[in-house]
């Protein structure tokens, strides 16, 4: 449930409206950042957007770590494939 989409903060309003503009591959929308707080956000940050609100700040380090783990699994798989090829059971 709850469609969420990552967007990059490209502008934060300078007033107390708690509004910011996010960019999703060139598509822009003004969203409310009140659930995170202006002070916790900067231009270039990525947030998860749901029904016009930023729900959480995307943790880029964690994202990279997850991907690395996945690549690791992939590496293991590739190694296995290589091992398989080498084993030459035919």
């Amino acid at each position, binding site marked *: *449930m*709850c*469609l969420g*989409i990552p967007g990059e903060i490209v502008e934060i309003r300078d007033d107390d409206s708690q509004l910011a503009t996010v960019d*999703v*591959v*060139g*598509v*822009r*929308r*003004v969203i409310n950042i009140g659930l995170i707080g202006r002070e916790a956000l900067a231009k270039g940050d990525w947030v998860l*957007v*749901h*029904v*016009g609100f930023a729900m959480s700040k995307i943790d880029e380090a964690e994202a990279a770590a997850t991907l690395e783990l996945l690549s690791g699994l992939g590496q293991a798989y590739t190694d296995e494939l290589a091992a398989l090829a080498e084993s030459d059971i035919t």
Partner: protein
Amino acid sequence: MTAERIAAPAPTREQQVLDRIERARRRKAVVREERITLAHGAGGKATQTLVEGLFVEAFRNPRLAPLDDGAILPATGDRLVLTTDSYVVSPLFFPGGDIGDLAVNGTVNDLAVSGARPRYLSAGFILEEGFPVPDLARIVASMAAAARRAGVEVVTGDTKVVQRGKADGCYINTAGVGLLDRPHTYTATAVRPGDAVLVSGPIGEHGVTIMLARGELDIEADVASDTAPLHELVATLLDTAPGVRLMRDATRGGVATILNEVARAAGVAVVVDDAAVPVRPAVNGACEMLGIDPLYVACEGRFVAVVDGDEAEAALAALRGHPLGEGAALIGRIGADPPGLVLLKTAFGGTRIVDTLVGDPLPRIC
């Protein structure tokens, strides 16, 4: 000077006034009102002024000029194609076009994908009382420009005005007549397993543009309608690939709906490769944001073609050689089983059904 001439009575002052009036009445009709009123649809002077001052002026051609009940057209060849569409798009003006060129291109495209040479259009306007005349003039001008570009003539028309609140500014119906010179009939039942499925360019641009142009979603993106006349591109394709089975312009319901129509009508499976379907990034971004699938989003300048599998590459090259087909792609193949279904090989490597949609694609949160 003969006696008779002398005897002709000098016109009275009243007659001089009346003559001046008749001269005034013969002058070119000019629409002076700022807004459309019910009078413009009542068939009297205001209608006459609107027709002569605006429509005839813009669409000027010898078949329209007599303003008789119908337009007389020379018919060469022995087969015609007739098609019609009403255009109710809102907003009327949007990035990349307006209801006017849409109403011309849309009908031209239905003729083109039927294999016909688009020739004549009718234009039926339903205007809302209060509609700004300058907006109408702009729409008519863009219809005229689109007609010139597509090589068709608007040869007959009709204007109705409805009470305020009984329309949305301006609705247009166009019917189109095309001449079918080619011996083939392009129809869904001609499709068979082994055929290839092509799309003439990136999809969903018109639909996304309209959704965003309404302003209700507060989303901005650098997208524009793809509205364009496809008759030349179609001709290019047909000249290259005699094994074209069917073409459809991918309007309401998008590519997915067309493929389902094909699968159903021909009793075949359509297998689409998701990764091959061309979608521009901004269209993709807007669709992700709204939770909708670009495969269901309308285009107004793209068509789907099913061609003999052996001609797929040649057909693709032909399409790509034309400016309107630069983004063409081979997106799938026709299979035999399961009949009546459209399957999508997802970019992720899985498989799913692509069914006909129940209603409009709705923005969703979940």
